């Protein structure tokens, strides 16, 4: 949905990504999103103006793509996205074999992933819940499979045995279907067989209680069931997971984020047919619980010295456990 979030992090890959955007049917979406993101003015840019902007780089760009531009010039394109359609036209008119080749390999409706590396969007598409109202559950993933490619970036400080995830290792990531291992308020079937609106608070309490059952499983299984594949994979790719404590902290933060997102979802539900009083109480309980989670997340987001990570994690766990317990009790008491 947000195409620009698929923008590669590495500056070296930015030019290639933009080239593929230019040769895709997604260009208008990307231009629109960048315009909103940077609150830039809607300018009219003609082909001639775009050519002037490219200046001496024009022939090189036509020959080998936007990688002919310096990184600072590429950034100018991102914050002045109205240049992109005009540059696209130049490439379509005057572009050489490089652009023709891109045009041929890119699927009609999208932007091709970087060769040899799957784009985050593609990765997420595989595990994103099909059930739209609970898209918050996008943060709940199914499998972490440490395959040959992943090993390159690996979670180095952990012993190899910890990298081998029991579930899913026999199914290569690229072929595995999306598996719904959602839990709690992200479960797609949470309210499926609710007979009356009055049952909803209890059902939400049931869902929330799953926090405790999931917390009891072994760490390795916890990863298999709950780790966010995108997050863990990307952090590992960038060597940003420095220790086992870091790893636990990431997963815990992720789980709390998932609950927070569940609150966000249910706080905006219409709960049709529910009495006004019950609706107000329910929303109040959800908001209060969400505030508690927000407070924990703020602490986890702040700078945490390496030596304190374990103790901070323990304190956060206690706090969240207590908040969940309170919220479950409150929900069960709602009439």
């Amino acid at each position, binding site marked *: 949905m947000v195409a620009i979030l698929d*923008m590669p992090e590495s500056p070296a890959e930015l030019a290639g990504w933009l080239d593929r955007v230019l040769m895709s049917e997604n260009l208008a979406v990307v231009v629109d999103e960048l315009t909103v993101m940077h609150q830039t003015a*809607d300018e009219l840019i003609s082909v001639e103006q775009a050519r002037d902007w490219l200046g001496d780089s024009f022939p090189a760009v036509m020959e080998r793509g936007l990688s002919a531009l310096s990184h600072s010039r590429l950034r100018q394109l991102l914050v002045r996205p109205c240049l992109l*359609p005009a540059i696209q036209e130049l490439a379509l008119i005057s572009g050489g074999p490089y652009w023709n080749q891109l045009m041929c390999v890119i699927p009609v409706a999208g932007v091709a992933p970087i060769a040899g590396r799957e784009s985050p969007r593609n990765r997420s598409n595989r595990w994103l819940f099909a059930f739209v109202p609970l898209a918050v559950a996008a943060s709940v993933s199914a499998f972490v499979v440490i395959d040959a490619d992943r090993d390159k970036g690996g979670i180095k400080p952990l012993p190899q045995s910890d990298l081998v995830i029991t579930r899913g290792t026999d199914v290569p990531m690229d072929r595995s279907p999306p598996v719904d291992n959602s839990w709690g308020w992200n479960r797609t079937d949470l309210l499926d067989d609710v007979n009356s609106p009055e049952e909803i608070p209890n059902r939400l309490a049931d869902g929330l209680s799953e926090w405790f059952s999931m917390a009891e499983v072994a760490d390795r299984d916890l990863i298999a069931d709950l780790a966010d594949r995108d*997050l863990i994979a990307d952090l590992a790719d960038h060597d940003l997971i420095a220790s086992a404590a870091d790893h636990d902290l990431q997963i815990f933060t992720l789980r709390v984020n998932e609950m927070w997102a569940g609150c966000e979802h249910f706080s905006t539900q219409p709960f049709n047919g529910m009495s006004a009083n019950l609706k107000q109480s329910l929303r109040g309980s959800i908001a209060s619980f969400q505030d508690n989670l927000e407070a924990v997340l703020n602490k986890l987001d702040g700078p945490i010295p390496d030596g304190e990570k374990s103790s901070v994690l323990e304190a956060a766990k206690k706090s969240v456990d207590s908040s969940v317990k309170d919220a479950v009790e409150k929900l069960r008491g709602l009439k």
Partner: protein
Amino acid sequence: MEQSQIIERRTCVQRLSVDALIREHSQRLRLWLASRVQRSDLDNASQEVWLRVSKHYEDKFDGGNFRAWLFQIARNYLVDESRRRRLTPVPDETEMVRPDLRAREPYEILIDRERRSRLTSCIEKLGEPRKAIVKARAAGLDYDEFVAEMNLSNQQASQHFFAAKKLLRACLESSVVEAV
């Protein structure tokens, strides 16, 4: 050769050459149109432009750069559509390269506005520092270039960014459901 035969043969040759042009340039035209018309209008617009090409190719094309001529035809088509729908002031044809001036129905304009508004609102909801990090990343900045200013480590910024991506997607999906 009879006059009628000459005309028939010429028509046949012309059809063959236009077919060849369509085969060679259809994807190029489609990409150009995709950033200038609504996706739902893409097929229709593409067909209309090729009809115009077919109609005028023999008389109007001067044998120069066919791609440039093709996009000029396409641009003229969009201008005509704009005029027909009388929605927006029609810009000079050579300047009409921006998606917002494409031929659009009122409901399409509303959908675009709604989409932009949703995105803006969801970005606001991210709060700081996530909002600033998302904007910095969307401007192509590397973590090293902005984390210090935000008093964050690379790892924290990265965590914020990935959480922000998830929240943004969730918020947008949720907004769509609400709108429906």
